[in-house]
């Protein structure tokens, strides 16, 4: 979003079609300083007036002031009364710039600065003002967003401006949105015709306006609004179902990602790896580390984290394999005990070395927000990426296990280690590679999870139980089973949740697993026949 704003600002400096709201002219610095200073002292009502005044000065710096104000970054130096814009407000000393000249004034203790208080109401006001400006940007998407922002915030004067804008607008979507914005205003004024414009709109604000009208005093208006709402409800239902499915798949793909590494180390190799969660955690911390190393480039850091997270977790996995698991060959249950110990150690290591607190992992711009399918159905982008990532990881793993010799060799080694070695299979190498692979994939899961949940020392613990359930539910040793199990458990959970609540839904899923295993004692895709009995 803010990239748009940035672009818009540059474009706007040149092209200003919307009346006299902003001009290239600069007002007197004194006037400006005065206005800004007043802003500092003003109460909420006065502030709203001042904001309008500032925007109407036509000063080209006004937008910067407004944005600084909205971000709580307009401040006054307590001693001198100078108005400054805070460039960086983290830590004890803040970097500031003069609000009028834009000169960087270096750092100043935050004790000596008084920030201009802002709250949601004022922020909304600024947003409105900025949106009106944005209605003129060249990018139609930007105009559409601006118009959508104005829904429900239109007053009589703005309505007129919008009418004018509507006449000039060429893009159909933007036109529709503007029409909606005006119609909502009209509806609020009691104009029954506006309902025609709004009926069929899936936009929540439009729906809210109709709702208000439906509950209003005017019986005719209320009836018409109710009718329009009823038709909207129908469409919403379908969208809602689609949304639930999406939620299910996205939860499912998280489960698949978390479990798929375990499907290798546990499912194929037979190591009950209680430290699997901590390997996921390492992947997530790698993402955080990358972002620390590449400040300001969260996207690049995230992309680089994919190989890095894999590597870190794989190396950690290999270290675990070499130092402990290799001594537990043929004693799978003991791996539970040892890896449980390792998981304790890794968790505490992170607590001591890094911090017991969660770490901030930034979501890059291109992963935030959502893709709008229609006004009622948006797919959140981070989830969409995770779904895609899960599928890619799954496919990659499938390929390795099916198409390379490693897949064959690891199965041979786990089924009969001595015989596999007699056939010339280098069991040690296979162990290292396979455990490294499974661990690396856990690291990949961590990279993805860093975009969804906390990055902290408990991250792993939160996923270990679910991971084992998914692998076992799908049938140990069967990668497809893990995929199907993860996706279906996710979907079932999301279907149940709105109906039963999150807690009961989770309980029901667990009970379902218990009952399902009665019917299929070897998971979704069991190994059948004589072969499985030995």
């Amino acid at each position, binding site marked *: 979003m803010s990239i748009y704003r940035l672009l818009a600002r540059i474009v706007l400096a040149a092209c200003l079609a919307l009346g006299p709201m902003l001009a290239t002219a600069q007002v007197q610095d004194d006037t400006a300083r005065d206005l800004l200073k007043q802003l500092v002292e003003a109460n909420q009502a006065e502030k709203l007036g001042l904001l309008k005044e500032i925007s109407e000065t036509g000063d080209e710096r006004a937008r910067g002031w407004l944005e600084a104000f909205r971000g709580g970054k307009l401040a006054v130096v307590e001693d001198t009364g100078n108005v400054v814009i805070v460039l960086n407000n983290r830590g004890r000393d803040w970097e500031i710039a003069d609000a009028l000249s834009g000169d960087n004034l270096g750092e100043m203790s935050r004790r000596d600065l008084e920030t201009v208080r802002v709250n949601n109401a004022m922020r909304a006001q600024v947003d409105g003002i900025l949106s009106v400006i944005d209605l003129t940007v060249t990018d139609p998407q930007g105009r559409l967003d601006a118009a959508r922002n104005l829904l429900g915030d239109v007053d009589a004067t703005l309505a007129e401006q919008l009418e004018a804008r509507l006449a000039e607008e060429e893009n159909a979507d933007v036109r529709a949105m503007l029409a909606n914005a005006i119609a909502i205003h009209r509806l609020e004024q009691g104009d029954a015709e506006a309902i025609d414009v709004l009926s069929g709109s899936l936009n929540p604000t439009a729906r809210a306006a109709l709702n208000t009208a439906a509950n209003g005093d005017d019986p005719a208006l209320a009836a018409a609004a109710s009718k329009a709402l009823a038709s909207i409800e129908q469409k919403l239902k379908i969208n809602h179902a689609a949304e639930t499915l999406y939620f299910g798949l996205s939860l499912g793909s998280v489960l698949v990602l978390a479990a798929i590494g375990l499907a290798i180390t546990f499912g194929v190799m037979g190591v009950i790896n209680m430290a699997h969660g901590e390997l996921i955690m390492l992947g997530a911390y790698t993402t955080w580390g990358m972002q620390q190393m590449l400040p300001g480039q969260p996207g690049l850091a995230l992309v680089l984290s994919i190989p890095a997270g894999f590597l870190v977790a794989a190396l950690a996995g290999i270290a675990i394999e070499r130092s402990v698991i290799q001594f537990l060959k043929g004693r799978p249950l003991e791996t539970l005990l040892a890896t449980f110990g390792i998981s304790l150690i890794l968790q505490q290591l992170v607590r001591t070395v890094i911090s017991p607190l969660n770490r901030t992992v930034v979501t890059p711009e291109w992963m935030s927000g959502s893709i709008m399918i229609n006004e009622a159905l948006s797919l959140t982008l981070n989830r969409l990426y995770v779904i895609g990532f899960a599928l890619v990881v799954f496919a990659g793993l499938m390929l390795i296990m099916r198409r390379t010799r490693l897949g*064959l060799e690891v199965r041979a080694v786990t*089924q009969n280690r001595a*015989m596999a070695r*007699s*056939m*010339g299979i280098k069991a040690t190498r296979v162990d290292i590679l396979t455990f490294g692979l499974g661990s690396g994939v856990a690291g990949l899961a961590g990279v993805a999870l860093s975009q969804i949940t906390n990055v902290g020392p408990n991250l792993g613990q939160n996923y270990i139980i679910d991971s084992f359930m998914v692998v076992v539910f799908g049938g140990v*040793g069967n990668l497809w089973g893990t995929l199907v199990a993860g996706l279906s458990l996710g979907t079932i959970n999301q279907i149940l949740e709105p109906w039963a609540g999150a807690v009961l839904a989770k309980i029901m899923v667990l009970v379902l697993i218990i009952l399902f295993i009665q019917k299929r004692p070897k998971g979704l895709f069991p190994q059948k*026949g*004589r072969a499985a009995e030995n």
Partner: protein
Amino acid sequence: MLKIEQLNHYYGESHTLWDLDVDVPQGQCTCVMGRNGVGKTTLMKCIMGEETAKSGRIEYAGDVELTRKKIEDRSRLGVGYVPQGRQIFPLLTVEENLRTGLAVRKDGSKKIPERVYELFPVLKEMKHRRGGDLSGGQQQQLAIGRALVIEPRLLILDEPGEGIQPNIVAQIGEVIRKLIEEDGLTVLLVEQKLPFARKYADRFAIIDRGRRVAEGEIAELSDELIKKHLTV
């Protein structure tokens, strides 16, 4: 080809093989015989490395000291092994079972040699069935086929005829002979069934309670020896 000298082996505290000497000459089939539990399988495992001898030497191909080699390297040196009890990989398909041996082939071939399928047509028929689903005899055939995939120079067979139908047993015997004669293969065979041993082996060695008690050309295997060492 293989020369075993003064081999001693223990399971924990119990002494299983006592100062054992066995000689397996190149290009011949040597048959190890003995009652149940005298240590035949243990000897084979020592050669393959699955068990570690406490002392003694196992000399392979003249100059290689096998006891110092890792298990997986022994097959690289050309030792093929058909263990007692089949030891196939139950959850791998027949084809995958066979493919496990491809890695050590000298020619780096990625294809299972046709000869294996010719010898055991049932394996081709059941290529995609899992090893564990096969009948006992089919599994035994698979185990032999699998050992042949690596094209061994020394083939160790621990009671290979067990559970296999008579005509195929005979066929296995023929193949062993053929490999010996045509490819110069050396065979170390453990076998209880006298007729088979007499027919296909060149030499014999009898083990009794962990000691080698007799050795010689197969023709020298007298009823007296048999009575002494092979009856209960």
